[in-house]
Structure formats: C-alpha cells, structure tokens
C-alpha cells in the first residue's frame, strides 16, 4: 500500500512539473528574461520566491522555464534511444545469427561511461539541442538494447512463439505481434530511467559548458552561472539543483513503481498461476 501511495505522489509531482512548464507563459507573474540591474542577487522574498540571479532575473521563473529544455531533451532522448535500442535488442535476441555482431557493437558503446561518451560527441559536434539529443541517444541506447535482448531471449522458447512459427506466421509479424508486446514492460521501465538519466546528463553537459547555448535557461546552465556566487547567493545554486533532484527522483520512483506493477513474478500473479485454488479459477 505504502509504495502505491509513493508512486502516486511521484506521478503527481512529475505531472505538475511538466504541465507547469508547458503552460508557464499563461501564469508566470514575472518574466524569466527581464533584466533588472537594481535587483541583482536578491534573496528569496514574497516578490521573488526563489530570489534573483546576477542579472536581477527572477530565479523561480527561470527554473520553471528551464524545465522545458530539460524535459524536452529527456523525452526525445528517451523515445529515440528506446526505439533504436528496442529494435536492435529485438533483432539481436530473435535472429540469433545477428546476435554476435550486434552485441559486440553495443558492447563497444557500453565500454565508455555514458556521460564521457556524450561529452566527447558534443565537443566534436558542437553544443546545440539537436546534437545533445544525438549524443545522449548514442550514450543510452546500448543499455536498452541489452535489456530488450535479454527479455527476448527469455521468451524466445516460449511455446506461443513456436506455435506462431508452426502456424506459418512470418518473422516480422512474430517479432511485433508476439515478441514485442511480451517484452514491453521492461522497455517502459527502462525508458523512464533513460528519461531521468538524460535530464541529469543534459544538466551535467550544460554545467560543463558544452551543453545548450548559455543564453537559454536550463538547469545545468543556471548551475554553471551560479557557481561563482555560491557563497554570497546560495539560493541561486540551490533551486535549480533541487529542481533536478525532484524531477529525477520522481521519474526513478515512477520507474520502480512500473517495474513492480509489470513484474510477472510479483506474488499475486504467481499464486494465480501456480495454485489456482488460492484464487478464482477462470470462469
């Protein structure tokens, strides 16, 4: 029960952040870009909930707007890495002859730490949002393809796959109508984790100065700008940092919750299968 509540809270927080940033223009009382030299580095107050930055801009407004870039990068990376990783994992797991080659390539990518790989790629490609998405996708798809492959290997010998083969169903149909739906749960769980990791990675890249254009408000950029003021205006660093923590945490909790919900080995389903007497036998 406890964990169910936790999942709901995480979902609510995440939705609040997402909706809040999308609709920001409609409700934000202060502009995130209005510069006011008189109001530099003010501490949090009723007028500026999170204080102001070194140009006198409202930090609350900037944190809210910055979520757009972070979430957009996260969503796109999660989707692209999931699609690419799933395709490779499906092919590698189902067509055993391709497995060796595909997995050695994937292992090659996995050999580099994800962030380092992304850093090198962005440094080479230049720091635009598109390039960051490409770099992070390359960094994160290998894990997905590993996860999908191992899930496919587990169900490869399931009788319903063999049954589909004996009924003359072609491999393409088997792959997308029989294999994919049955490995969907680890894919969804893994993609929420990629989402969270991508947000973190984007912030890290921006913080290191190779990320999104410094004029665009992102959490990473804000952290980078706030560095030198950390002793005199700690709120400048704290609020973007807290935003990252809350977003990533709620995504991770959601991912864990999804994993529990999908887990075929969770107690309830296990009982149903093994001991029909303990629950209702199907009508």
């Amino acid at each position: 029960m406890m964990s169910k509540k936790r999942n709901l809270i995480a979902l609510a927080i995440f939705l609040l952040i997402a909706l809040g940033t999308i609709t920001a223009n409609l409700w934000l009382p202060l502009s995130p870009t209005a510069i006011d030299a008189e109001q530099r580095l003010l501490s949090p107050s009723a007028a500026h909930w999170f204080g102001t930055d070194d140009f006198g801009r409202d930090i609350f407004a900037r944190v809210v707007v910055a979520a757009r870039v972070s979430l957009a990068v996260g969503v796109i990376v999660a989707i692209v890495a999931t699609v690419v990783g799933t395709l490779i994992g499906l092919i590698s797991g189902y067509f055993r002859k391709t497995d060796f080659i595909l997995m050695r390539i994937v292992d090659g990518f996995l050999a580099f730490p994800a962030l380092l790989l992304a850093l090198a790629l962005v440094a080479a490609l230049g720091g635009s949002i598109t390039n960051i998405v490409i770099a992070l996708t390359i960094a994160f798809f290998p894990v997905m393809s590993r996860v999908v492959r191992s899930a496919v290997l587990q169900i490869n010998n399931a009788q319903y796959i063999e049954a589909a083969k004996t009924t003359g169903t072609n491999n393409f149909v088997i792959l997308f109508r029989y294999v994919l739906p049955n490995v969907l749960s680890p894919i969804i769980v893994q993609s929420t984790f990629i989402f969270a990791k991508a947000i973190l990675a984007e912030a890290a890249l921006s913080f290191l100065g190779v990320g999104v254009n410094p004029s665009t408000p992102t959490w990473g950029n804000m952290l980078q700008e706030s560095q030198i003021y950390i002793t005199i205006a700690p709120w400048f660093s704290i609020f973007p940092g807290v935003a990252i923590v809350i977003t990533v945490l709620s995504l991770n909790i959601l991912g864990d919750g999804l994993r529990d919900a999908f887990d075929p080995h969770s107690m309830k389903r296990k009982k149903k299968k093994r001991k029909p007497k303990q629950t209702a036998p199907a009508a």
Partner: protein
Amino acid sequence: MLEVNDLHVHLETPAGLVKAVDGVSFRLEAGQTIGIVGESGSGKSVLAHSLTKLNPEPPATYPKGEILFQGENILTMNKRRLRSMRGNEIAMIFQDPMSSLNPVFKIGKQLIEAIQTHQKLSKKEAQQKAIELLTDVGIPDPERRMQSYPHQFSGGMRQRVLIAIALAARPKLLIADEPTTALDVTIQAQIIELLKSIQQKYGTAIIMITHDLGVVANLADRILVMYAGKIVESASTADIFYKTAMPYTWSLLRSIPRLDAGASERLLHIEGQPPNLIDPPQGCNFHPRCPFARDACLQENPPLGERGPGHLAACVLSQPEFEKEKKGVLLS
C-alpha cells in the same frame, strides 16, 4: 492415532475468501494408509499441509475444527511442540524433490543434519545412520553418493533422499503430497514399492495425496475423495472402486483412459471445470457437472451419509437409486 474433526481452512486472497477445506473429518489408525484423491483446487494439498500446520499464515486461517494427533490438538499446540512434532512424529514429502533440498549442500550433510536435529548422536553415529537410511531407500553405493549434490541426482533419486530424510526420526506418520507426480512411470513404480516396503518394515502410517486413482488403488487401505474442499466419498479402497456411491467418484473413474480397457470405448465426459471456491455453486458443489443432477441438488450441499459399513458418500441419491441411474447414463 490421527483424528480430524470438522476441519475448516480458509485462505484469504485478494479475490476473496477461499474455503479450501470446508468441514473435513476423518480418522487414521496406526500403520494404516489413507489415500486422499482430488483434482487441483480440491483442497487436498491444503488439507495435507494443515495436518502439520504448514500452510503459510496468512493467507491461511483455521476458523473451526481440530486435528488430534495421539490426543493432542495440533492447531492449538505451541510452536516448540509443533516444531518437534514435525519431522519427529509426522514427516512430509512433496511433489518437487528438487525444491525440498538445498542445492548448495551435499546430500550427506543434509541427511546428517536432519538426523542430528531429532536425535542426540555424534557425527560418526549420525553418518552411520545416514548410510543405513540411504541403503533402506535403495540408493546404491551410499557412502559415495553422500558426497553428491542434489543436482547430480535424478528426480527419482532425489525423492528417495527426501524419503530417507523423512524417515530419519522414525516418524509414526508420513504425509506424501503427490510424491510421484513429477516422476516417470517406471520411477513412480519404484517409489510406490519403496513406500510399501517402508510401511511393512516400520509400521509407518501413510497419508498419500494424489490425483491419480491408480496410485492409491495400489497403496491405500482407505480412500477419501475430495471435491471443492469437502470429502464427498470415504470408503475402503475396494468399496471406492467397486461400490462407488458418489457421482463424482463414479464419473472420474469412467473418464480416465485405462490401460486395461478396450481401446475404442469412449470416455465419459465430465462437463465444465472444477468450481471456483470463492463463489461455489449453490447446493451440491458437483451438481453443475453431475450427470444425475436433479432439483433437490440445488437446495443443499448433501452431508456424508452411510452407504455401508465404513462407507460414506455425500449425495442426495440413495444407493439403490444411484445404481438405477448409473445404468441409464451408461446406456445413453
């Protein structure tokens, strides 16, 4: 020796309350073999586990009834007494011998441990005893086999080891829950012969739980037939097979293919599935599937009634009525 009176065992599941054992009573004398026959979901396994209170609680609860073993009620026994009873006086063997053995310890170690928990013996004496036990259950070359791990044994050999462990303390009662279901037919025959010889040698009483009427025909003195948590027929083995008084038992006997039957005979067809115990049918549990069902069967679940000496059956039909009806069904 063992007396079960009006035992109820309930399982609380997310889908609702399951009355897995619903008012079961029977007696077992020393040295006797009772067969409990039923399909999956009949409650036979829950009943077997109840006898040593082994059902996990929750979901299991024991709202009513008593289990008297040599006069002591197992359901109200304290934990220490219960633990010493299990294994010492009542031992159990299960369907899946692999999951009952610890895969990381050698067979010999597990057997010696079992012996030492019940008897104060030195390591050497226990080892000697272990070798004796393994010889008793027909494991060749026991000294060497003690050094093996469970995965190095076949299913039949593992079941023999479990029987050896069960026999370590010379129990008065051995409860065997589908011990041969996972085994091949020739190995099953070996295990059944082994159980018989153990009974002759040590006078151990056996409760054999199975879905296979053939297995108990060979082994049991008495048979209890379970359906939907209740005993629906209880009689000597011969009476169950030759003077069947309950339509379920009768249909079951005629629905199984027999090796000794002519090939082209069509099997009797029992319609439907075993009932859902969360929401059992009104009246007699078997009536939706019963070829003899009539209006009276909808009214109440018939109690066990006397059909002969030591022969109980739960059916609204009296024996002469049933005999007449049987002919009708066979003809149609």
